[in-house]
């Protein structure tokens, strides 16, 4: 297959990327691609089963699904926090494997569900932690961050709506919404090509969730980053995504623009699974 579908046609429901294997050979079109990715945890849980997904550059792609449908596992495979049992993940044309971890982690920023900040460190240091892959070890050990980097951290904090007073407060003292703002700033500090957001608003209340999603969208546009965001709230997915990938029991059951997310589709995504325990503890 030599002719390639432009990014737009990738939204054409289930019959998109899976029918276009050639797309993988064009790294400048596709930022993140999963090919036949499957993951079974040692406890026997089949979290992901044969996922093919190709996210073009600059897209805000939401992975939608109920808790335990394998969304987190999928995202974690992108930065090597989880290794798939079979299949391959590529980021900007580079295969994710032990050898390429450092290169890929440099290009990918990640926002976590539980924020995962170091609560006893100040906000500034937490943001700077996003740049640890680039920082020489001696600088990291002595906390000798270059001034330009610290200035960038301040800019990012201002962009996510924090003020100077927050700079040297302990991250653990901030509210949940503020902590996730710090998380977004941390993920953006190295101008990542890909932003992963693993249930970024699952621990937040609805109005704050909306603000955080807006910030994420804003940040991705400013940094020109591709976003892969897992969510379980349908309304947020509808409002913020360019493309929604519905996932149930580890398999893609829907792939299309938000407008195509109809009631029958939702039923398919959120269908209660029968007996076999496919749900994962990973969210």
């Amino acid at each position, binding site marked *: 297959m030599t002719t390639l579908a432009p990014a737009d046609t990738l939204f054409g429901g289930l019959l998109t990327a899976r029918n276009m294997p050639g797309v993988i050979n064009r790294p400048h079109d596709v930022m993140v691609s999963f090919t036949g990715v499957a993951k079974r945890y040692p406890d026997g849980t089949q979290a992901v089963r044969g996922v093919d997904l190709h996210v073009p550059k600059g897209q805000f792609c939401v992975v939608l699904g109920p808790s335990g449908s394998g969304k987190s596992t999928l995202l974690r495979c992108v930065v090597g926090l989880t290794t798939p049992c079979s299949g391959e993940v590529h980021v900007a044309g580079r295969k994710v494997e032990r050898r390429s971890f450092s290169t890929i982690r440099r290009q990918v920023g990640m926002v976590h569900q539980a924020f995962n900040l170091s609560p*006893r460190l100040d906000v500034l240091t937490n943001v700077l932690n996003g740049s*640890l*892959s680039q920082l020489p070890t001696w600088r990291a050990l002595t906390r000798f961050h270059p001034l330009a980097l610290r200035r960038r951290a301040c800019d990012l904090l201002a962009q996510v709506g924090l003020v100077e007073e927050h700079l040297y407060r302990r991250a653990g003292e901030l509210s949940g919404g503020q902590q996730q703002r710090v998380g977004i700033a941390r993920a953006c500090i190295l101008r990542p090509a890909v932003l992963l957001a693993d249930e970024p608003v699952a621990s937040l209340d609805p109005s704050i969730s909306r603000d955080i999603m807006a910030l994420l969208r804003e940040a991705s546009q400013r940094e020109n980053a591709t976003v892969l965001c897992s969510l379980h709230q349908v309304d947020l997915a509808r409002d913020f995504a360019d493309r929604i990938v519905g996932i149930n029991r580890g398999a893609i059951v829907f792939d299309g623009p938000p407008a195509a997310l109809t009631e029958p589709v939702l039923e398919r995504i959120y269908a209660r699974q029968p007996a076999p325990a496919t749900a994962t503890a990973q969210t």
Partner: protein
Amino acid sequence: MSEAVTPNSSAERPRRPPAEWTLHPTITPWMIGVLLVGAVIMAISAKRMELDRMTAETAEYAVASVGLKESSQVGRSTARFVSGLFPFQISNETEVPLIQDFNRDDLPWFSHLEQRESIQPILNPETLQMEKVVSTIEVLVEPIGYLGHVVMLMIITVEIAFWATLIAVLIAIPLAFFGSRNLTPHPVLYTIARGISSFLRAMPELVLAMILVLAYGFGPIAGVLALGLHCAGFFGKFFADDIENADRGPQEALTAAGANRVKMLRYAIIPQVWPQYVAYLQYIFERNIRSATVIGLVGAGGIGLELKGRFELFNYHHVATILLAIFLTVLLLEQVVGRMRSKLL
């Protein structure tokens, strides 16, 4: 997941009414057996440890102390020692002929010379009779001389404890890094690091000090090293256990951000475990001050040697001063360290 599992497992046997559910007994024959065996072993051990005599003599002392009995063995011996303690020995007197390079014009601070007459029986070689001869001896009196001496020794003791704690921490850092499952680069290194920690903990510091005195000679070096090595074992284990138990969230975030193990330790783990580490540090430092007085007994510097010497000469006034100095030092440092700790957190 729970919805999926519950029907499966319950499908295998018919549901019974709650009144028929099997409950585990509170006391089992096994428990009674274990208790009985435990009691027998303890009884044998107690006999070997003379706990019966301990009980009898303590009871006798208690009876005597409320006046129901004339006196008790324990009471008499304790009273003899305690009455010997007072008054505290503060001053120091030295016979001038015993002082090397004595300079009459340059006496130590706050000191003066006194003439003392002493009557000594001397054998007269001509008559072969014992004769009493009155001789005058000049003594150098330092009113707070002994106190000063004890304070100096106590400062040395605290210094030994300080350096020992520092050395222990420096040795423990690599032990903790390699000895924690989540940071160690290889399982073999993990086993080696844990093994070294256990070995160092298992070596009694007094034995270590005796060996090190042979190697480095008398003085504080042996003390610093003995305490440092012994406590490195403790720190190595405590630090590593805390690293293993630290919250995984921040570690995962930094892994995803491309941080290596050292950076992760610095930014995800140390900030979390820091309060606990400071607590260990405080405890081990206090413990080292107490231990430094003990290892002085084998010549490893500090106040221990002085304490042992005075004890064996029955100089209980001096012993009292030393014990008071140790007590006050520990009390004082507890306050100081406590304040520093609140600053460090």
